[in-house]
């Protein structure tokens, strides 16, 4: 399996990606302070893989997700989708890119427009990409709701976000992300706002979707245990630099970098020693 993957072009490739934020002080003082959020990041994500990006707050892990869905552009470096560079896409090409790369956001209470019904929210990607007509769209939404575990779909169709629980809202976000049948989904801490029992169900949903639709995921998390449960490979990111990459098992059982070791040691577990 690994051999075949090595020959394939990776679905997503980051080559020496750097992202700097400059904060101009003001008109009068000319000095500019640059904050380096990402420093020379290189990554390759293979098809059908769930790739885990583990890091603490401020490590730059969310910035990578935002770069991949084109909410931001890298300062330096190249991002490739299926081998093609994607820097500075505009107009149609950007729209096409976005239909291939979708995102699930962290906070399900913030990522759904409170004024739109569930149906309107999920249908939006179809509408803006002009796919199907009113009838086929409706069927597609119902089907997607069922896949996301919101069944029967008709029950949720006309509801509004405030009538749903956190877990249900995140399923709506998942449905919105998969409705265009994208190749690649960025999941940015999709369960950090959810209870453990709800989170594990959402993980299961992501695993099911991967199996059914052969989608590739980038799973961004601060939780090593969750990354191990869900991911095939893991990259550990610290202060904008990837310090360690490897199979999930290997990174956790045999960490090489001192930061990874520190992270693993700090994980709370059920060892009642004191």
């Amino acid at each position, binding site marked *: 399996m690994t051999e075949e993957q090595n020959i394939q072009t990776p679905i997503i490739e980051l080559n020496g990606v750097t992202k700097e934020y400059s904060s101009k002080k003001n008109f009068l003082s000319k000095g500019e302070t640059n904050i380096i959020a990402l420093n020379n990041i290189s990554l390759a994500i293979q098809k059908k893989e769930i790739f885990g990006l583990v890091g*603490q*707050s401020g490590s730059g892990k969310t910035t990578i997700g935002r770069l991949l869905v084109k909410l931001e552009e890298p300062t330096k470096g190249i991002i490739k989708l299926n081998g093609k560079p994607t820097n500075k896409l505009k107009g149609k090409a950007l729209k096409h890119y976005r239909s291939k790369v979708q995102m699930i956001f962290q906070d399900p209470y913030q990522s759904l427009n409170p004024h739109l019904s569930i149906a309107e929210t999920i249908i939006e990607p179809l509408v803006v990409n002009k796919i199907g007509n009113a009838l086929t769209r409706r069927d597609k939404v119902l089907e997607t709701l069922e896949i996301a*575990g919101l069944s029967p779909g008709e029950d949720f169709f006309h509801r509004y976000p405030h009538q749903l*629980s*956190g*877990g249900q809202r995140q399923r709506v976000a998942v449905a919105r992300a998969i409705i265009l049948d994208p190749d690649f989904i960025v999941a940015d801490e999709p369960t950090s706002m959810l*209870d*453990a*029992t*709800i*989170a*594990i*169900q959402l*993980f*299961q949903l992501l695993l099911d979707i991967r199996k059914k639709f052969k989608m590739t995921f980038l799973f961004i998390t*601060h*939780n*090593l*245990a*969750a990354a*191990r*449960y869900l991911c095939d490979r893991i990259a550990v990111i610290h202060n904008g630099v990837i310090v360690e990459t490897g199979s999930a098992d290997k990174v*956790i059982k045999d960490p090489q970098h001192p930061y990874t070791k*520190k*992270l*693993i*040691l*700090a*994980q*709370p*577990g*059920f060892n*009642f020693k*004191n």
Partner: protein
Amino acid sequence: MALLKVENLSVGYKSKKGMVNAVNNISFSIEQGRSLGFVGESGCGKTTIGMTLMGLLPENASILKGDIIFNGNNLASFNDEKWRAFRGKEISMIFQAAMNALNPVIRVDEQIAEVIQIHNPAMSKSDVSNQVKKIFSLVEIPEDRLRDFPHQYSGGMKQRAIIAMALACAPKLIIADEPTTALDVIVQDQILKEIKKIQKALNTSVIFISHDIAVVADVCKDICVMYGGHIVEKGTREEVFKSPRHPYTKTLLGSYLTLDSYEDINVPEIREAPDLITMTGGCRFSANCNCKSQKCQCQTPEWVNLSSTHQALCFEELLNKDKND
């Protein structure tokens, strides 16, 4: 005698749809120098317990029944004035959002000194500043950072300052409500160690509230598991986490991811949150429970003693049936 004894406490919130029974008929006690953990998911009532013990319930909430006996005083009957003198001195709290609990325009040491002075008006200035220094060395904030403003602190430092503030008057009981939820794992680990160390050093009692069972297991010797406003299982941490008996505790543990236990994860069914307004007689967990017994839906379960310290709120035969499976 127990330092704090809570008996048959019920707390409700008034809402447009009716009374929300956030905490329902719970009893527990804590001895001097012990640590008690409340664990449960959002909406289980654990934060309400903390707020009740601090006398900080919001306006639309009230204690419906029950007693809170702390050192011979019944806190349930306290008025605002009594609370003001009491709060922070005898019981203090470590809040979740460290960044919001500190005043951004006052130096950190002054904020702590103020807490000491409020409760000890007779104390001299030099005594107060000595006390502040002592507390800061306890939470391991270097002395040259004392005069800083809160924004100059990192997240972990702020949380330490909050702990220092809680310790200012050497309270007998500290309530920590999700004190590490907003922190990174490595910082969380340091703060948890800090709390354990301080608890030992000062022989303070700690009530630790969290949704993260591993964090609670790390800090607390005694555990209460909460669901839908009820305590459903209580015991020592070994009893509750090594041999859980209540179906909810099992679900909770079964779906918790750790670095070692990632393979034997049970994915629970899609679960509905318990309705806290309409009070049916049955067990609150019955709708989501695997046992699906008729009895659970109409009859209120009783406490079953499993050992001298371990109890579960369920039906005895169901607990045993489950064991045989």
